[in-house]
């Protein structure tokens, strides 16, 4: 049990880092919408359209690290399997 919890914690950290890196390694805050700029051909004005997209940021990494830390902490209180 102790080992399983620690493995879950490790998977959580590795998975979060892999997901963060795969989605652009955003070093800012997590975003759920991103601006897309469009140019109006007649006026030349630059419009901003907001598109739904999840982009994890450093707070996402922090939450994953915290979650893994909590799981690891819990694992210390789990009694070892009797031999």
């Amino acid at each position, binding site marked *: 049990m102790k080992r399983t919890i620690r493995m879950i914690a490790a998977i959580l950290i590795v998975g979060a880092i892999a997901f963060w890196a795969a989605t652009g390694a955003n070093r800012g805050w997590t975003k*759920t919408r991103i601006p897309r700029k*469009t140019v109006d051909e007649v006026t030349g*004005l630059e419009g901003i359209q907001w598109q739904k997209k999840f982009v994890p940021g450093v707070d996402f990494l922090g939450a994953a690290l915290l979650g893994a830390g909590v799981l690891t902490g819990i694992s210390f209180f789990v009694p070892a399997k009797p031999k």
Partner: protein
Amino acid sequence: MKTKLTILAFIALTGTALAVPQTFDFKDPKGINNAAFKLDAPLEAINGSASSISGTATFDPENPGATKGKIIVATASLMLPNPMQKQHMLSDKWLDAAKFAEITFESKELKNVQTAGDTTTADATGTFTLKGVSKEITAPVKLTYLKDKLGQRVPNQKGDLLVIRANFTIKRSDFNIMPGQFEDKVSDTIEITLSLAGASPK
């Protein structure tokens, strides 16, 4: 000869007297009009925009310096990429969007007017109202008059377009938005960029 000159002078005077300023409506059916804003912050700058914009301006192509108008931004339409930041921004502690539903700028006078062709640059002085606080500000503006171009933008409509671009800064502390607080996390200065097109159908 004298009679012809008198007639010409009469036509010119009548023409001047009949030059009526056009009214341009800034409710944009294409949804391009926006007010972008930026605040510096330690991790990354906070960049957002507002899309729900309305208002009118009176503009006379023969006298651009007499342009006046009012632009209204719906506070609830302010958007940020981070949902928690957006929630905080619209809450009663920051913009209080529920109580102060509109952000407005009413231009009363243009100074330093310079016109070249269809483009006029000037300093617009007027009243900026945010979170119920009104302050007189001066913002550099660029007006571009696009005669008979409305049909290219909105099918089956004839008329003119007026494009307004403006960049200016305000201080949130001037408008009672958390004055003196969290300045290490969110700058006091807010950079605002207006990109607007108004229509005057014929």
